[in-house]
């Protein structure tokens, strides 16, 4: 792979939570580079700092020290408004649970970034883009279903559609398959994979599941707030987890 300018660069990130006398160091010096179009998985056991890292990468939270550069711009020091605009225009998030506003239908949920920006999601380019991402996540025809009329897997795909709809520089997904069964989880990962393979979407996926991580080009293993290992899988069309599991076993994980 040619070395292009990285789309995302994290330098020596630390994050310390303090309550009174006790402190928790959730991150203790994480550096990470993501190239445009890359699909990176962050793996680690529960409490290892995956979510914390993801939040900081996407501008939801600020590091205690270190910096994050997205598309050449340092975002870790941004004020709240600037960080918010950044999220609206340049990042897309998918969380583990409850990604949707229950009172809005699927299309309205997907159109939220446009609504928030003061555009009408039912007309013009916004409407085209929404139609396009519904297709991409394979939900054509379900635009006007409300979240409680959709299955858990469909709900997560709506969330992915929303993360993709503003063509962000990077999509950050935090265990999107975490509480789903194997097949349903597969649908979601396929949807993410399609966006990466067909649209060149850059993705950072947090998971503790090797089968999910096997979709990625590269897996970063986090432990106790530091990146312990990197496993490069390369772009493949089959997402068999066996090689990754073998590599993890070699590392004693």
């Amino acid at each position, binding site marked *: 792979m040619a070395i292009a300018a990285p789309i995302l660069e994290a330098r020596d990130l630390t994050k310390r939570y303090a309550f009174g006398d006790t402190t928790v160091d959730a991150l203790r010096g994480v550096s990470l580079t993501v190239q445009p179009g890359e699909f990176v998985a962050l793996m680690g056991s529960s409490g290892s700092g995956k*979510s914390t890292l993801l*939040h900081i990468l*996407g501008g*939801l*939270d600020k590091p205690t020290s270190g910096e994050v550069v997205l598309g050449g711009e340092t975002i870790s020091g941004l004020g*709240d*408004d600037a960080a*918010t*605009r950044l*999220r*609206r*225009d340049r990042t897309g*998030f998918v*969380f*583990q*649970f*409850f*990604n*949707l*506003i*229950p*009172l*809005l239908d699927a299309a309205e949920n997907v159109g*939220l*970034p446009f*609504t*928030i*920006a*003061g555009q*009408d999601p039912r007309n013009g380019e916004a409407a085209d883009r929404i139609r396009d991402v519904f297709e991409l996540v394979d939900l054509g025809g379900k635009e006007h279903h409300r979240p409680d009329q959709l299955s858990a897997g469909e709900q997560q795909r709506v969330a992915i559609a*929303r993360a993709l709809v503003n063509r962000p520089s990077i999509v950050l997904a*935090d265990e999107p398959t975490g509480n789903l069964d194997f097949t349903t989880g597969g649908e979601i990962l396929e949807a993410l994979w399609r966006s990466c393979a067909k649209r060149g979407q850059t993705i950072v996926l947090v998971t503790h599941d090797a089968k999910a991580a096997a979709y990625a080009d590269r897996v970063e293993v986090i432990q106790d707030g530091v990146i312990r290992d990197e496993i490069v899988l390369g772009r493949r069309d089959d997402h068999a987890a066996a090689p990754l599991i073998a590599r993890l076993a070699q590392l004693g994980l």
Partner: protein
Amino acid sequence: MVNGLARFAWRSLRARPLRTALSIVGIALGVAVLFAALVTDAGIQAGVGRTVDDVMGRSDLRVGAFEEKGLSASSLSAIRSAPGVAIADPVLEQRTYLQRDALTTADSTAAAYAPPITVIGIDPTIDGTATGLHDLQLASGQGLSPTSTTDVLVPAGLARDLGLGAGDTLTILGLNGPVPYRVVGLLSGAGPDPTSEGRGVVVSLAASTALFGDRGATWVDVGLAAGATVDGVVVALEQRLTFEPFVLTDRADLAASLGASTAGFEALTALIAAVTLFGGAFLIFNTLSMTLSERVREIGLLRAAGTTRRQVHRLVLIQALILGVSGSILGLVLGLAMSVVIARTVGSLGDSGVPIDGPVVPPLGVALAALVGILVTLAAALEPAIQAGRISPIEALRPAHVRRHSLVSQLRWLAAVVVTVGVAGLALWPIALGPFGLGGGATGNAGIIRPLVVYAVLLVVTMLTPLILGPLGRLASLPFALFLPAEARLSRGSLARDRKRTALTVGALTIGLAMIVALGGLAGSAHAATDAWLTDVIPGDLVATSIRPIAAGEGVAQQLAAVPGVATVSPIARFAVAFRGVRVDAAAVAGSDLATDGRLTFVAGDRRAALTALDAGGSTIVPQAVADEFGLKVGDTLDLPVGGGEAVEERIVGIVARGLPGQSGESVLIGWSDATSHFGVLGADAFAIRFVPGRMAAAQAGLASAARGLALEPTPISGIASAINDAFGRLFSLFDALALLAVLIAGLGIVNTLTMNVYERVREIGILRAAGMTRRQVWRMVVVEAGTMGVAGALLGCLAGVILGFALGGVAGLGGPGSGPTIPWLTIVLAAAFGIGIAMLAAFQPARIASRISIVRAVQFE
């Protein structure tokens, strides 16, 4: 276990101090208004009692004269000799004016007319002694000498205003010109007639002859001999007094008629209290539901650990009890303070001048207010308690979910609270006043029907709100959608989240605003009615009043008519007739003048024929109010006693929308010929003067000097109207203040609801923020949400208020006589602005909370 539960209940209230405080304040304001109303009503009842004492003095019975010439000497001696009468104490009373020069602030413009004084003639040989029935407490100086005919006693306040002291001269206008008196003493009390409002000067009956000629007593107060009964003496007097018509009044009659005049006021305060309490109940309901929805898991765990369903019910009810008791105690204190303010503001009620006594605390009222506060709180807690009991142990393990309630159960709950408030508040009202409820029995029921109807209207409006919430919300969010489409779109959904909660929040606001608008309508129509009333019946732009009857032969009317710019002059005399044993106001008028001037609105009978018949005699024209009261129609005959055991027949030839204003209502109209020949009317005591159009200003000066020469006091119609309207104004501003409180409580309800909506949406707000919504947008979203509720409440409230205003129309005379409905546009605009403003202000804190939600935390946990 109850002990443990109580501790748990207490802790969970303490965990959210702001919300708990809000609910307590809500219920406290409700109880406060209720209690203030009770204390005020008790004060009114006490005021009625005191007024009866003031008016009747120590007398048991009063014999009043119907005719201007008063009760004759033969009547007085007949009363004295009647069995059972221990003492008969005559009083003469006549309104007149002080000579202008005596006034330091002499101002000849017609508008600044000097108010009249009342000359009270007493018998110093009786009232100067211990047996006298009238108190003459002296602040300084000495009493009236039985022999002097120039002594006068002046109330200390009036003396101060006039700059007079003992030994000074007071010149009073009499029938034959000014008469000088010497001030011998200053009165400290209100004197023998408190209705003279501090402007009653006291002279001996003998001294009054110089002013008014040889006139008899206006009334004779009777003290009963030991063992005699009022009824026995009444029978004896009715047999003996055959010289002229008279009217008997005893203490019970007076109390009843004064009580009736205050019933409307009491009914309205009761209604407003009920409405306010409803708002408070709603706050409690919200607080408890919120606490519950936050604690579903905790309660699930309690259930899993073996807590029974009944214990969970008890847990919620204990919380309600804590809120109810603290709210009620705080409410009683606030209510007492409020009642002091009310007594100060209103002072006295209407024409009857019944004063509102300072705080009179009815013991039963304290119990009732507290009980209603607690009952309402418990009623509001019932549904949350039942919901809590339904939480299953499994729920502790499940992720939080949105609970949906059926519309039927929502309405059932609503009805329960409303009915509890209604029944507890209104039905127990007369009971609570207990010993103070003097005239309550007779008047209470009639006064309470209409508020019940109003309450039912409000109930229906609130019950309908959840049904029309969808379209209403869309309509109400339109103005916001124009400027903040994203926020409007996102907030509209959250109003639909819990229809019941939104409906009640909007409902509380609706009701408060409806009250304001309805009161605005009433006040407006009262004003309009007073103006319309006077212009409808008085054939002139100005009324010149005389202190003495001016006979037709004196040529006074002609002299006035000769003033340049004066078009017509019409004589009017006010007197009274007895009909079916009741005193009815009457007025002598010239039918031809009314016909030419185009006055009077005929409801029945032919206008021209009726007015002609009036002048011819044997005919009368009756105002609608009197016709309704006695069930009269055109063609009926009134048998009116005229003394000597005789009666004259007056046939009703017409019914008019309004008659001339009388002392205690509207007057029946009688032609001049009958008035003088049968009813003892000696002459006109007022002239209605119409100016040539466009020459009013010029004519007024000429008229003023002519009037002075004739000892007449000119008063423009507008002056009369504004005096009446002032009294209405004070009353309505009080009601408005109370209704504003109801809106304020609704505001607290909005704070509560928004906070709850925000807490239930933490996760959603996190998602929105992650998707790029700024803090400011979140803030605005909550404010728009509040604004939408405000607009919805304003729309419904103004609509309901206009309807109510029409329905309330004439609550016991508060709407003014024969008032037509008016739509109070200004009030509507102000009320709507106030409601929307309060709603958006209420959003401040919840919006702050929402905008500060940490995204990371919101999205981190399920």
